């Protein structure tokens, strides 16, 4: 896992998506990032940019709703990424 704290924003496209990271995914990346993407980009693209392994993401939400890695993101979306969490 990279130790670098990214300078915002990342990506360089015209569509802005807010990415929220939790627990161990925050290490070296911070809590919240703004990513600039191209039309049609997906959460997979986001984790590639952030150097996050797919298997480290157990729960992926777009605007609070469960979603897949190949979903199409839209301007203003909030993408939340979690490693496995549980409790009760």
């Amino acid at each position, binding site marked *: 896992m990279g130790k670098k704290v990214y300078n915002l924003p990342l990506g360089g496209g015209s569509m802005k998506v807010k990415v929220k990271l939790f627990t161990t995914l925050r290490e070296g990346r911070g809590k919240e990032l703004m990513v600039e993407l191209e039309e049609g980009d997906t959460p997979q693209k986001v984790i590639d940019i952030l150097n996050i392994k797919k298997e480290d993401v157990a729960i992926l939400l777009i605007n*609070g709703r469960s979603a897949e890695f190949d979903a199409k993101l839209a301007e203003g979306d909030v993408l939340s990424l*979690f490693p496995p*969490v*549980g*409790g009760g």
Partner: protein
Amino acid sequence: MYGYKGKILRVNLKEKTTKVEELDLEKARKYIGGRGLSSKILSEEIDPKVDPLSPENKLILTTGPLTGTPTPTGGRYMAVTKSPLTGAVACSNSGGHWGAELKFAGYDAIIVEDKADSPVYINIEDDRVEIRDASHLWGKVVSETTKILEEECAEKVKVLTIGPAGENLSKIASIMNDVDRAAGRSGVGAVMGSKNLKAIAVKGSSKVDVYDPDKLKEVFSKCMKKIKENGVTGEGLPTYGTAVLVNIINENGIFPTNNFQTAYFEKADDISGETLAEKYLVKREACYRCPIGCGRYCKVDDIEGGGPEYETVWAFGADCGVSDLEAIIKANFWCNEMGLDTISAGATIATAMELYEKGYIKDDELDGIPLKFGNAEAIIEWTKKMGRAEGFGAKLAEGAYRLADMYGAPELSMTVKKLELPAYDPRGVQGHGLQYATANRGGCHVRGYLISPEILGLPEKLDRFSLEGKAQWVKIFQDLTAVIDSLGLCLFTSFALNAEDYSQLFNAVCGTEYTAETILEAGERIWNIEKIFNLKAGIDSSQDKLPKRLLEEPIPEGPSKGWVHKLEDLLPKYYEVRGWDENGVPTEDRLKELKIITG
């Protein structure tokens, strides 16, 4: 005898007598032990209509057959009784080390009967059992009581005790053990208080025998591997504790805020497991034989102790509109010292805050500590006063339902069967809401944790808003949970283990011949005897409901905006999959199939 110790200790506090009885092994195996066996015993020994705080109620402190064995998390005990909060069957479950020690002392369970004339405690050193005067302990907080008993009883004694809240018969009082572990819910601490029983100190020196040690070794290795490799039990819980849930639940828009008036808390990250780990965590704690170690130990100013758990962080945090994690840690500390259930205590203060803001509760009752949402001082001060039943604190100590009812607004208490709902808004998790409505002990999350499939994707991902198949899922989760509780294992193992694993552990330890299918049937048997107790106690399907707010007021904002809970559409299907009639009463045929009745 394998797994079980084969002995039940019966203590009559009025007569000051103690008696050792033989365990009915056949019955034990049929109802597994712990929660299952003791619910059966309670059903046979008390009239379900008794006043829960009268001498006629009994308190059963019970272990499972795997408690005190080398099985992963095999250290749980349960307090089974009739609840003074709900009037339903209560089974409150706790970890720590006390449960295993009771097994080492030679007992599967203690049945406490009647009421002592003055405060007493029970001291157990293997087969030496004494009922001792506890007048010097009465009024003392949990840590102080524990310390005194550690000095006056055997070396390395394990202590279970109530705090001032239980003595004052608070309907939300817990039973505490090992200082900071709690059998929290349903007011079981008040039952102990009503019997003038302050504490039970236990020291044991025997082992629990295992039927097939080689087989156990094999099953143990398999289960440990699963627990270690599972992301939740192997990493999430050990690193961040249960409060790791704060952000995920909030991001789904189901984090009840300001007494369920909304379900998204803007400042959730300030009170998250991540923040707790970063700023306040001193060390991790693990219960007996636990490879997970989700327990936290935190310090703020001059206060330090176990916790806080996710539910506690929510109850005193978002539910009270408070984002001050230091204040939450302090409120948690005082709950543990007073012996108060943290969910009920926080949720009751949240209810009081809504009653205050809506003008039902006036300033002249409040000793200058206004119950406004977001008031961090209020959660600390009112928790202390609740524990001591001081002033308005005495009203809070009655729990949310009775408090709101006193002001003519019972609909403002977010309760099911008078038990305060925990930290997930059912409007955005339909299956979990069905489970709240149908749980035998009332609005509870640990009788069938549908959050696991609906939010966490374990064992598979379900659409949280869909109703499809949810009744079946609720039934299976409820039955499996009854198994895990009754065995004496921690529910958190179920993130990694399944029914087959549990049956193999049980068989290796006890020499039983359960399969995944038959052990789930045993769970269903347990669920049904609890249900029958409730029906006899007068709690019928008219109480299988959710607060009006959750059925009629859509969530106003956030990711679950616009949703209400659709209980009416789910409940008939649930009764059907349980094999109950349309009134939610178990049918004779089903009870015969489950071998609860014969003929």
